């Protein structure tokens, strides 16, 4: 057992490390209100997400991790620093960077179908192509029966599936997920965590994922970025093994694996320091 763990861990020199950064947050600082007087949300954070990598940012609540995400998506401008996609300034938000919001943010006046097609219509995809991609996503996310439903008719878990489908249907180069399962009950969360894990392994999405759950971070992440309390700085970056057996199965099984437990303890220790320190 010990030996196999070591072997898998050494296998973590993943091919993605040589690839260029798909998304780079470079020396990001963000103040809300005047510099020096307002709220200092994020201080000098740099994160590189390589192609096909799943980066999880974890930290105590209020540490500015969601701010990092809105800056990464282009929804807010950083006070200092820059956001790069393929080494070039990323500019305003656009379909290369799809976002899954914590509170789903589905348009209440539109059906599941209209919500998922929204981005395709805005970017001028042909009607036939829209339909094909819609059908594909409905199938992947298990939403075929809810095509004509309004968001208010769906459970939280179903709504978040729609939100994920709406993001994936754009075939984005980068997927930004802001505590996507934070508003869901524990059972639904587990199911969706496993589905996101499966999707990532099959399709190699490039993901920046924000969470406050250490368990979620260890299960989903290729690398975990631990943030300090506000103003959020990067405290530690921890590489996790990829392609290990416990990441391919259910999260309850993974949670019993010694390697998982070790990483969880290490990361939780780092987060805990931030919560308890004054």
């Amino acid at each position, binding site marked *: 057992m010990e030996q196999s763990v070591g072997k898998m861990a050494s296998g973590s020199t993943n091919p993605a490390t040589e690839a260029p950064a798909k998304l780079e947050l470079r020396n990001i600082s963000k103040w809300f209100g005047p510099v020096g007087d307002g709220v200092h949300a994020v201080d000098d954070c740099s994160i590189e997400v390589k192609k096909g990598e799943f980066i999880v940012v974890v930290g105590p609540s209020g540490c500015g991790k969601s701010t990092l995400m809105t800056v990464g998506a282009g929804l807010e401008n950083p006070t200092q620093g820059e956001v790069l996609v393929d080494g070039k300034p990323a500019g305003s*938000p656009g*379909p290369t960077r*799809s976002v899954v*919001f914590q*509170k789903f*943010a589905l*348009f209440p006046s539109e059906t599941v179908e209209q919500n998922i097609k929204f981005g395709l219509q805005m*970017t001028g995809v042909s009607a036939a192509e829209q339909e094909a991609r819609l059908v594909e996503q409905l199938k992947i996310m298990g939403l075929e029966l809810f095509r004509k439903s309004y968001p208010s008719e769906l459970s939280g878990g179903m709504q978040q599936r729609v939100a994920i489908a709406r993001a994936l249907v754009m075939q984005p180069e980068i997927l930004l997920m802001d505590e996507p399962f934070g508003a869901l009950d524990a059972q639904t969360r587990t199911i969706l965590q496993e589905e996101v894990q499966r999707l990532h392994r099959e399709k190699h999405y490039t993901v920046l994922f924000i969470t406050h759950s250490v368990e979620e971070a260890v299960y989903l992440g290729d690398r975990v970025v631990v943030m300090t309390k506000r103003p959020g700085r990067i405290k530690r970056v921890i590489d996790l093994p990829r392609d290990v057996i416990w990441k391919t199965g259910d999260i309850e099984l993974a949670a019993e694996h010694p390697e998982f437990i070790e990483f969880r303890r290490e990361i939780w220790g780092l987060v805990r320091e931030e919560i308890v320190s004054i």
Partner: protein
Amino acid sequence: MGVLTDRGKATAYGIFSLSVLLTLWICATSLFQWIEPRVLPSPAQVIRQFAWIITEPFSGLRLPGHILFSLERWGWGVLTAGLVGIPVGVFFAWNPWFKTFLNPVFELIHFIPPFAYIPLAVLWFGASTATQAMVVFVAAFPAIVINSQLGVAQVEKIYVDAARVFGASPFRTLCRVVLPAAAPSIYTGLRIAISNGWMALVGAELVVGKVGLGFMIAQGQENASVATIFVGVITIGCLGVLIDTLVQRSERYVLPWRRVAG
């Protein structure tokens, strides 16, 4: 009563209270003659007057004619108030500069009673449809602007963010995301505007014009015919309720997602 739905109960109570009123009316007039007919006509007299005005022209027009003229003036006033008021309200909320610039003017206009515009409307338009329509417009406009503005201002930022992320331009975000989200509030504004406009119309017709329900009431006073006044007042009340009900009912077809928001 246990088998009735909430809506059924409301209808039952409505019928009950109207019946009590009618009974009291019958007692006070036909039955016991507590009140003289020239002060309060009996229901029978009012019904006779109704029949008479429907079949015989009164001051040049039968009752349906007066109703149509009133509806036309009211329709034009409310329509223009909606066509102007909704965009103004939306832009107040969408563009803070626009609001800062125009709000003082709006506040001032808002506090001038609609009837204060009647002399001006007469000087501008003479005794035409436009005169009463302008008064209706003035009465309807503020509610539409205020509620449209509120509706847009209350749209959560996360929806606008989501629209931006998925590549929508500001204009398409406005049309496809912001306006539908603001629609219930805009609808409320329209409902208030419609009833304000209706009341202002009758007021304006009392003062200006030679047709319409308000004019009919005024003629009733001239001819000392209380029954005519009652016919006018009842017609005005019933039409008001009818219009409001239609607008209320239409909401579920115009905003289908609200049906399930429950």
